[in-house]
C-alpha cells in the first residue's frame, strides 16, 4: 500500500457505502489516487492476446496490464473488441493465443478475488428471480452446491443491496426494476463476493444520470478501499472524471497509460480512425484542459 500515503491526506473522505444513494452529487467527491505503475502482481495482466471469431482476428496480440488500485477504462469504437477482451480474459470466449493472469496467477486460482459485472442486456430480465435471488448467486460458490444458505449469507446479500441503494427492492422481481436498478443489482452481486478486482462491461449503458452518479460513487469508494476497477466505457467526456488509467483499442492496442498522458486528441483520433469530428476533438481538448487545470 505504498500509494496510500501519497494522496490520503488531501482526498476528501468518501461517504460511507452504507449511506450511498442515487444522489447526483458526490460522484466527484474525492480524487482518484496515484496508481502504481508496476506490472508485477498486477490485478490483470494481458500478454499477446489474440481472439478470432471467424478468420479475421477480433483482437490482435494485445499486451497490457491493469495497475493495482487503478480505475481503468477500456475505450474504443463499436466492434473494437472491448467486451471480447474482457470475455477472453475471463475464459468466456476462447483465446487463439496469449495468456492472461490475475494477481500474477491463472484465473482459475484466483476466481474469488475477481468479480465480473456483465452487460445488462446480456440476460433475460423476465427470469423468475428477485433482486435478492440474483445477489445470492454471487454467494453460491461460498455456500456450496448442496447446502442451504445460512442467515449470514442473506445478511451479506442484504448489505450489498443496501450499498447500491436497493435494500427495499430486494423482494421485487428483476423485470419490474428500472434499467439503472437492474445494473445496480448486478453491481450488488459483484460486491457481495468481496473481490479485489471488479471487471465491468459497460456499467453505464442505458442508465439515467442519477444512477450513473451512484454507480461511480460506489466504484470510487471501492477504489478508495484499495480495490481495482476495470470498465468497458463508452462516454469519452467522462473519462478524465471517472478514471485514471486507460486502454485504447481498435482490434489492436492503440495506447495505454495514465489518463493524463494517454487521453490525448492524437490517440483518440488514432483509435476512432477519423470517426471523431473536429468538433468532438475540440470538445475533448476542452475537457482535457479542464481536467488538467483542476
Amino acid at each position: 500500500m505504498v500509494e496510500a500515503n501519497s494522496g490520503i491526506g488531501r482526498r476528501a473522505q468518501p461517504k460511507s457505502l452504507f449511506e450511498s444513494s442515487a444522489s447526483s452529487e458526490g460522484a466527484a467527491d474525492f480524487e482518484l489516487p496515484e496508481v502504481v505503475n508496476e506490472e508485477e502482481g498486477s490485478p490483470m495482466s494481458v500478454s499477446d492476446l489474440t481472439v478470432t471469431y471467424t478468420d479475421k482476428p477480433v483482437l490482435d496480440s494485445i499486451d497490457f496490464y491493469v495497475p493495482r488500485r487503478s480505475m481503468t477504462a477500456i475505450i474504443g469504437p463499436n466492434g473494437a473488441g472491448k467486451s471480447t477482451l474482457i470475455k477472453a480474459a475471463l475464459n468466456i470466449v476462447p483465446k487463439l493465443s496469449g495468456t492472461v493472469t490475475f494477481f500474477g496467477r491463472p484465473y482459475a486460482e484466483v476466481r474469488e478475488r475477481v468479480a465480473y459485472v456483465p452487460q445488462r442486456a446480456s440476460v433475460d430480465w423476465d427470469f423468475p428471480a428477485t433482486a435478492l435471488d440474483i445477489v445470492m448467486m454471487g454467494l453460491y460458490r461460498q455456500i456450496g452446491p448442496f447446502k442451504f444458505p445460512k442467515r449470514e449469507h442473506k445478511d451479506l446479500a442484504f448489505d450489498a443491496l443496501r450499498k447500491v441503494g436497493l435494500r427495499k427492492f430486494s423482494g421485487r422481481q428483476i423485470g419490474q426494476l428500472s434499467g439503472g436498478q437492474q445494473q445496480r443489482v448486478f453491481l450488488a452481486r459483484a460486491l457481495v463476493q468481496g473481490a479485489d478486482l471488479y471487471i465491468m462491461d459497460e456499467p453505464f449503458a442505458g442508465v439515467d444520470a442519477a444512477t450513473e452518479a451512484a454507480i461511480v460513487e460506489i466504484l470510487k469508494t471501492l477504489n478508495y478501499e484499495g480495490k481495482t476497477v476495470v470498465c468497458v466505457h463508452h462516454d469519452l467526456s467522462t473519462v478524465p472524471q471517472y478514471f485514471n488509467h486507460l486502454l485504447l483499442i481498435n482490434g489492436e492496442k492503440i495506447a495505454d497509460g495514465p489518463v493524463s498522458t494517454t487521453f490525448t486528441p492524437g490517440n483518440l483520433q488514432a483509435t476512432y480512425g477519423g470517426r471523431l469530428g473536429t468538433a468532438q476533438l475540440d470538445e475533448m481538448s476542452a475537457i482535457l484542459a479542464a481536467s488538467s487545470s483542476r
Partner: protein
Amino acid sequence: MDQFFRALILSAGYNTALVCIGATILGASAAAIGTFVLLRKRSLVSDAISHSTLPGLAIAFMIQAVVTGDGRFMPVLLIGATLSAVVGLFAVQWITSRTRLHEDAAIGSVLSVFFGLGIVLLTVIQTMNTGKQAGIASYLLGSTAGMLMSEVQTIAVASLIVGVLIFFYRRQFTIVCFDPDYASVSGYDVQRIDLIMMALLLAITVIGLKVAGLILIVALTIIPPVTARLWTDRSAIMVYISALFGGLSAYIGAAISSVDYGLPTGAVIVLVAFSLFILSLLFSPNRGVFAVALRRRRSIAELRALSAAAAAKANAGKAVESGSSYEDRASVNHGTATRQAAEAAS
C-alpha cells in the same frame, strides 16, 4: 365415475394405487426438470428427445421378438429408446453447431425424421408374426392398462432418483439458466451442467414413455412449469409448484385412464395439465387474467381522477387570469367540485 373416485383415493385396488403413485412421482420429476429446461429456453429439445426414441424402441422390440419371442420386456425397450434418443440429441447438437441452422430448425428436422423412421419400423413390426406387437403401440400415446408391477416399480424408483438429482443440481441449473457467462466466470462448468440437465431430461422422458407416451410426454415437461410461472416470480419456488402441478396431472390422468381402458393415459394427463393451466391463467393473483384486468381498471380510474383534478386546477388558473369576477367564481367553484369528485373517486 365411482371407479374413478376410488382410483383417486387410491382404493381401487393395490395395482391401480401403485400405478397412480408411480405416475405421480414421474409427473413431478418431469415437471421439475422441465422448469429448468424451460428457463434455459430449450423446451422443444424435450420433444426432439421423445420422438427420437421411437426407432430405438422399435429396433429393440424386433431384436427381442426374434431372440425371445416376446418383444415387450420393458428394460430392453428403454435401453433401445435411450440409445436412439441420444443419437437424436447429438444430431440436434451437431446441426446447431456445424450449420447455420438454429436449434428450432434442427429440432424440427431431427424430430420428424426419427419419428418417420420409427413409424416405418412399427409397420414392419405389425407384419411380423411373433412378438406380441400389441404391446409396442402403447408407447405412442401411453397406457397404464395392463402394466406389470415390475414396470411400475421401475418407473417409480427411477423417477425418484431423477427427482433427487434435480434437487441437488437445482442451484447450478438456476445460475446457468439465468446467465451462463456469469456461471462460467464463477467457476461452474456450464457445458457439464447443460449436459447433466439434458441427461436428466432424457432419462425422465425415456422412463415416462410407457405412462405418458412419446408423442405427448413433452406436455409433462412444458405445461406444468408454464403454469407454475403464473404463480411465482422465483425460480426456487417455481420448481416445487411445477412439480406439484405435474404430479397432480399425472396422478389424475392415471386415475381416469385406469377406469376405462380405452383412454390413453398421455392424452388424459395433457388435458388435466391444460385445465390446471387455464385455471391458473384466469385466477393467479399476480399474472392471472382477472387480477390484471382488475389492476388495469383500478389504475385507469386513478388516472382519470388525477387528470380530472389537473384539468380542474388548470381551469381555475385560467379563470383567475381572465379577471371576470363572475366567471372567475363559477370556474373556481366548478374546479373545486371536480377536484372533490376526483378525490371521492380515488
